[in-house]
């Protein structure tokens, strides 16, 4: 069953078109959502939560029509907003228990699940202190906890790594992997950082100017190219000449060589050449496509339309 299905989804606010003819079929798993700022992304999230009517088209989440079954959708979906949303004078425990009850859980279950969920997101003694004193990392964890406490089938995470330093970002990405993998909950993550989406998501949806630009699996978008990067410790000059002579296509880019991979024998060629020339082999890596290519290519084609 599809996780999310939209057909010709369109939303206009007067003269501004936030979404145009969006047709998507998202499968369960961890999916990344990238797009132009502002209108498109938050509008889409609101529509999927059944909080905003569409101008045209339809959407269904977990098999439920968002137009008619909004409350049922919201029962089964968790949402982690991008903005700050935690009252400062309440502790994490109190807050998450309250939110669990606001999702319909009976009091005992709410308490138990709140305690468990806070442990899963990595909040220990801190959870009894008022949230006003929390760091950004802790706040993001509480926001995630309230989205998970009622055991949703799907969570929508809106820029979960916003404001986190590199260590915090790593932790959050790891948590997201666990949610999708170990916890078995489907995830939609929005982010501006293609690098992190590559690491965490199984598939990517790119929306640009309200329209679907691309929807593919991360694997297919980051497949290996036919070029291998080689970096050596020492002067690469002789190596370049040696490879040329052997008939391999080589380009040098500063310290780094790019070699065409016609078949796997080129690896042995490089290895032997490096060894014979008394160089050190620092790196031998097949280049992969990056998600950013979508934007640089698209840019050249469309002339770079911005919001």
């Amino acid at each position, binding site marked *: 069953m599809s996780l999310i299905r939209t057909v010709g989804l369109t939303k206009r606010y007067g003269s501004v078109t936030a979404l145009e003819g969006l047709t998507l079929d998202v499968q369960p798993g961890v999916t990344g959502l990238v797009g132009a700022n502002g209108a498109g992304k938050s509008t889409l999230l609101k529509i999927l939560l059944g909080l905003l009517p569409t101008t045209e088209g339809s959407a269904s989440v977990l098999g439920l029509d968002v137009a008619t079954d909004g409350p049922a959708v919201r029962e089964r979906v968790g949402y982690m907003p991008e903005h700050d949303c935690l009252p400062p004078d309440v502790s994490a425990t109190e807050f998450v228990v309250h939110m669990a009850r606001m999702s319909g859980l009976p009091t005992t279950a709410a308490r138990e699940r709140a305690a468990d969920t806070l442990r899963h997101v990595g909040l220990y003694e801190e959870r009894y202190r008022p949230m006003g004193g929390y760091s950004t990392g802790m706040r993001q964890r509480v926001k995630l906890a309230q989205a998970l406490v009622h055991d949703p089938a799907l969570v929508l995470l809106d820029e979960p790594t916003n404001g986190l330093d*590199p260590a*915090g970002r790593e932790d959050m990405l790891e948590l997201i992997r666990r949610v999708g993998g170990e916890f078995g909950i489907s995830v939609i993550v929005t982010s501006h950082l293609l690098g992190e989406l590559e690491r965490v998501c199984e598939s990517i949806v790119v929306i640009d100017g309200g329209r679907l630009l691309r929807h593919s699996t991360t694997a297919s978008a980051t497949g290996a190219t036919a070029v291998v990067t080689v970096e050596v410790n020492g002067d690469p000059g002789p190596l370049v000449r040696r490879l040329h002579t052997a008939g391999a296509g080589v380009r040098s880019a500063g310290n780094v060589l790019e070699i065409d991979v016609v078949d796997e024998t080129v690896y042995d060629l490089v290895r032997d050449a490096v060894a014979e020339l008394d160089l050190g082999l620092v790196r031998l890596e097949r280049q992969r496509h990056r998600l950013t290519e979508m934007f640089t290519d698209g840019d050249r084609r469309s002339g770079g339309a911005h919001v």
Partner: protein
Amino acid sequence: MSAVEIDQVSRWFGNVVAVNDITMRLDAGVTGLLGPNGAGKSTLIHLMAGFLAPSAGTVTLDGEPVYRDPEIYRRVGLVPEREEMYDAVNGWSFVLANARLHKLRDPESAARRAIATVEMADSQHRDIRGYSKGMKQRIKMATAIVHDPAVLLLDEPFNGMDPRQRLHLMELLDRLGAEGRTIVFSSHILEEVEQIAGRIEVMVAGRHAASGDFREIRRLMTQRPHQYTIQSSDDRALASALIAQPSVSGVELTSGTDGSIVAVQATDFAAFVHALPRVAAREGIRLLEVRPADESLESVFAYLVAR
């Protein structure tokens, strides 16, 4: 070409020492200022811009102290992190006002150029109130470059920008740096810093932890063995051959995202990279991938912060 010199600078706010005895020199090119949340990066940037006085030490631009010197403001542009702006004016007026405040000879064309550089020409006549986060960032950029400063200081400039805007900003900073300007920007997104910053300055809890090219910094961390991951045609044979090498302190047979790998810990980087292709050639093992696992800025940063 202008150089910002920070000489034994400290800045405290009551008992909180935000910047603790820092000495650094920033000149032409792009420098990334990194550190965990609360490390003092924003404070340092504001000290460099002349908006804060150092509690100890001196901050100079080409020899002259920067604090409250209006002449300095002509040569320095600052893009602060805070979002608050004058909502009720439009982008054009805002940039123009800044141009006038700088007493430029031709404020209109300077403003037009600045707005064109940040690609906000289409939205310049809309009120700032209606701008998305990324658009506000770009207008802030425009005001910071309208007077063509020699030094540009940016505090988390990529915040809120979508992938395309980020690419454009990176290209812009790269270009400005290549023109000989001194560009300093703080960011948590290490993969982007890696791409455009020639050097990095790392701050941890107000102290200056490291500076320079991050690869060089990694080589300086001699206590930490280098981590390598290798994919080959015969992992076990390679592992046993490598462990015989004096430069190798550990091997592990494990699996990565693409299959089985050999994870190597090398205490002597140069000796290891030299030995690897030789060992593989001698044993007849094909090397399919050789990758330094902890040479990325992410790893270097993690090590620096954990000290």
